[in-house]
């Protein structure tokens, strides 16, 4: 009968006090919409959309659009449409990406995202987002925002039944900001509720009394009074409890919300019962039960509990039993909800596999306890009326016993969790530190090999030696990444990010990379990619990781024969859905049948000796399987000892719709449809051009010299070649040769020259270079210069000299 849900939106949206001081037209409209959301969210949504569509000042446009989006999201949230709200929040956050500062509005958006997560029952995400929002508000110096985030976090813990933690957050929220009455009221009331749940009634009474000072004359006054009365009665202060209750009744009688009265009747019954006025108590509770359906489940549960106490005291056993059943049903449901929320919150903090196992064990014990209790209750129901009283006593005792057992199990759970949390924190810390410490020297090795290899005048022998060092460094980095990946998988932190990718090219890459390795072991690589889908939607990085791991594994364990790679699509007979199958078969040592599953566990190879002979961390297959499962598929193995093993990766297949169109290539008619090839030896120049041209053209690739450019032109897929003059040694003849090759390949050609004189341009023109752009040039000018060449047909003139 505790009222705990003071509409959070009331404080989330009530305009902040300081906002009223700065009264730009925009701020005023925002304040109006915030107020409107509480009253008429549908209209607020329309107004927020109008606000977004209105013209904005250039300097504050980003902020204003984000604010309008936030209001739209809040309006949708209060209409119970978290999905639509989320879409808006995501795009608003994307728009803010890269914009420095404005942490307050980012905080509000993340807080709204947390609200959506709560509405969708994703407690773990909600907790994380609230914590992020809190940090953002700290950065923004927004104390009110901080208090808001802390309050919501407290409420999450409260919902999960962890009242001690909730209490800490409510306290912090009150400390963080005290000038907002609505916010403070929610925090103080929720704090008092947590104290009640912890059975610290005198403190709860004091807190409710404080809350009462904020609500005088508001509609919330009767709710707080009701909470206060209940806590006073629990603290055995019956006279003050009656006074509080009478005041609540006085406020409630005219046109009160329908759920309010039964709760008040319930408190009245509770007080009367504890004062041993059973007739009065029965009258109150009967009235309450008649209207109980109008209240929330928690109030109903408490009403049934009070009713059971009253009927039992009056000796009305059949009614008491019915009430007990009703109570138990609601209590079970609410415990299950709280338990899943608790589990999610625990996961948010730490959820290594081992610890989950221990928690599951404890949960099973708890479930068994409850099952035993239920069995006893059933026995009771089937017994004769004559023994009902006796059974009721047993039932009553067993509730207490069961409760005690559950309480004891929870206590064990808490102690175990604290210990595990420490151990796991140490493990995470160790992995993070190790990874950090290894990455630092690797940065030296890989950094310098990259710098050396970037040099163009490098002796070929020296180059191949440096490449070897670089390759070894990359392998070492991959091992460190593997270890980190395993830790991330165990904590559920690994994420899959899908996008369009070229599967066939990825597999061809894999063949190329591993052919060299296979040759040194004198084994062959065969592949069948004829039926392999081309462009698909998947997580390229993770798919590459799986395939490379499977290939590496196959080659590692094969001493003679060959490794076969095949990929194809197949249709599921039952669902009709398409599936991608990638198969890696080797003729290696094989795996004993009874150990086929073991190889997918972390840090496991079939015997320790194998690790010493074949190297590796023994993490590869564990990672492959976890990744495949995270992508909705799996990795399976089939093996014959001494003959070989076949690993099969199966994933849901999503093809890119436009695949057919790509095969049927058309020549580009504008820069936007052109495949570009740029000759630019300077890596920074490449970086800038890639950033500038990506999105302006169909695709761009870079080479560093003429010969690689000529090679790339052979494929016939390039529409436009752009050459940096210095890459051609400013040699008109060489440029002319390249221009001719472009003409032959039906590609346009643009030459970039730094401050060329008219004479030099003339020289290049004489060699057939028609389109010269002089630098320095601004980015927009360069783009329009490049677009200009699409007005003309492709220049096919031959070289003059």
């Amino acid at each position: 009968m505790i009222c705990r849900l003071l509409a959070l939106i009331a404080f989330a949206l009530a305009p902040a006090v300081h906002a009223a001081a700065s009264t730009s037209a925009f701020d005023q409209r925002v304040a109006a919409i915030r107020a409107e959301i509480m009253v008429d969210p549908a209209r607020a949504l329309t107004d927020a959309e109008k606000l977004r569509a209105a013209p904005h000042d250039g300097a504050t446009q980003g902020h204003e659009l984000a604010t309008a989006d936030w209001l739209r999201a809040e309006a949708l949230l209060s209409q119970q449409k978290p999905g639509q709200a989320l879409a808006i929040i995501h795009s608003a956050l994307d728009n803010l990406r890269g914009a420095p500062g404005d942490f307050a509005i980012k905080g509000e958006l993340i807080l709204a995202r947390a609200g959506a997560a709560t509405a969708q029952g994703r407690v773990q995400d909600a907790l994380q987002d609230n914590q992020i929002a809190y940090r953002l508000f700290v950065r923004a110096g927004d104390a009110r925002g901080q208090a808001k985030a802390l309050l919501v976090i407290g409420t999450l813990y409260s919902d999960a039944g962890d009242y001690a933690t909730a209490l800490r957050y409510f306290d912090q929220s009150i400390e963080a900001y005290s000038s907002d009455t609505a916010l403070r009221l929610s925090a103080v009331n929720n704090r008092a509720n947590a104290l009640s749940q912890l059975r610290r009634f005198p403190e709860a009474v004091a807190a409710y009394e404080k809350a009462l000072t904020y609500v005088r004359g508001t509609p919330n006054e009767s709710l707080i009074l009701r909470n206060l009365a209940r806590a006073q009665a629990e603290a055995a202060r019956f006279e003050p409890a009656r006074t509080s209750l009478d005041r609540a009744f006085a406020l409630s009688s005219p046109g009160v919300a329908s759920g309010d009265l039964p709760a008040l009747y319930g408190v009245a019954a509770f007080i009367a019962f504890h004062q041993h006025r059973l007739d009065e108590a029965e009258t109150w509770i009967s009235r309450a039960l008649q209207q109980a359906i109008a209240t929330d489940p928690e109030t109903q549960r408490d009403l049934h509990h009070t009713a059971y106490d009253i009927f039992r005291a009056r000796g009305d056993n059949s009614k008491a039993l019915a009430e007990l059943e009703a109570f138990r049903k609601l209590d079970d449901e609410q415990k299950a909800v709280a338990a899943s929320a608790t589990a999610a919150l625990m996961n948010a903090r730490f959820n290594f596999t081992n610890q989950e196992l221990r928690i599951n064990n404890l949960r099973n014990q708890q479930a068994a306890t409850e099952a035993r209790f239920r069995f006893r209750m059933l026995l009771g129901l089937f017994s004769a009326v004559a023994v009902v009283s006796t059974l009721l006593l047993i039932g009553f005792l067993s509730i207490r016993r069961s409760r005690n057992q559950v309480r004891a199990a929870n206590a064990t759970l808490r102690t175990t969790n604290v210990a595990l949390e420490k151990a796991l924190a140490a493990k995470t810390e160790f992995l993070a530190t190790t990874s950090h410490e290894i990455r630092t020297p690797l940065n030296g090795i890989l950094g310098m090999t990259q710098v050396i290899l970037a040099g163009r005048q490098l002796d070929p022998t020296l180059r191949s030696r440096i490449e070897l060092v670089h390759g070894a460094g990359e392998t070492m980095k991959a091992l460190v990444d593997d270890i980190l990946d395993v830790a991330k998988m165990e904590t559920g932190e690994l994420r899959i990010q899908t996008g369009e990718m070229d599967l066939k090219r990825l597999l061809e890459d894999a063949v190329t990379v591993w052919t060299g390795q296979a040759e040194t072991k004198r084994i062959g690589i065969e592949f069948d990619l004829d039926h392999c889908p081309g462009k698909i939607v998947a997580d390229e990085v993770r798919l590459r990781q799986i395939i490379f791991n499977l290939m590496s594994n196959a080659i590692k364990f094969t001493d003679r024969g060959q490794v076969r790679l095949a990929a194809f699509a197949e249709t599921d007979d039952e669902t009709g859905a398409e599936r991608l199958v990638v198969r890696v078969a080797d003729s290696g040592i094989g795996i004993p049948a009874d150990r086929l599953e073991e190889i997918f566990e972390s840090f496991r190879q079939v015997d320790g000796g194998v690790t010493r002979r074949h190297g590796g961390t023994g993490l590869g297959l564990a990672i492959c399987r976890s990744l495949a499962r995270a992508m909705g598929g799996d990795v399976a193995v089939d093996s014959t000892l001494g003959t070989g093993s076949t690993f099969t990766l199966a994933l849901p297949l999503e093809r890119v719709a436009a695949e057919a169109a790509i095969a049927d290539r058309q020549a580009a008619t504008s820069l936007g449809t052109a495949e570009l090839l740029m000759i630019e030896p300077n890596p920074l120049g490449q970086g800038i051009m890639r950033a500038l041209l990506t999105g302006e053209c169909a695709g761009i690739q870079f080479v560093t010299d003429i010969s690689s450019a000529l090679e790339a032109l052979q494929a016939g897929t390039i529409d436009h070649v752009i050459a940096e003059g210095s890459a051609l040694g400013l040699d008109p003849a060489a440029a002319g040769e390249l221009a001719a090759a472009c003409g032959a390949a039906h590609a346009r050609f643009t030459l970039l020259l730094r401050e060329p004189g008219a004479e030099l341009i003339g020289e290049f023109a004489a060699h057939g270079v028609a389109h010269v752009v002089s630098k320095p040039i601004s980015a927009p000018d360069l783009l329009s210069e490049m677009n200009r060449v699409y007005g003309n047909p492709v220049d096919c003139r031959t070289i003059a000299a």
Partner: protein
Amino acid sequence: MNILFVEDDAMNRRVVRDMLTVAGAHMDEAHDAESGLQMIEERQYDIVLMDLRMPGMDGLTAIKHIRARKDEKASVPVIVVTADTALDICRDCIDQGADEVILKPVAMNKLFDAIGRLIARGNSRMMLN
């Protein structure tokens, strides 16, 4: 182009300096966040590269100081260069005001792509050389 790298580890500074030399770019160095902030005060930079873990002030706090400036230097593009692989490190850095995050060991092409993006984004009127 003026680039500043705030990093306490001499080897890491050397690696990035040599990478930028390949591209013909000059790099100033600061050994800790405090002197880095001082150099930003005194000079004009196009890009600031920032390590996270440093003795004294850490990188995120330094970014906070930069973003809190009242002049146009508050919006100088900042790239975090870190060996920290904690979950959400990227999101955290971006939330705290960084523009890009690069993990150590630094891949040269990623470094130049990040610098390229920031140059192209922030200075579309800048003259390309």
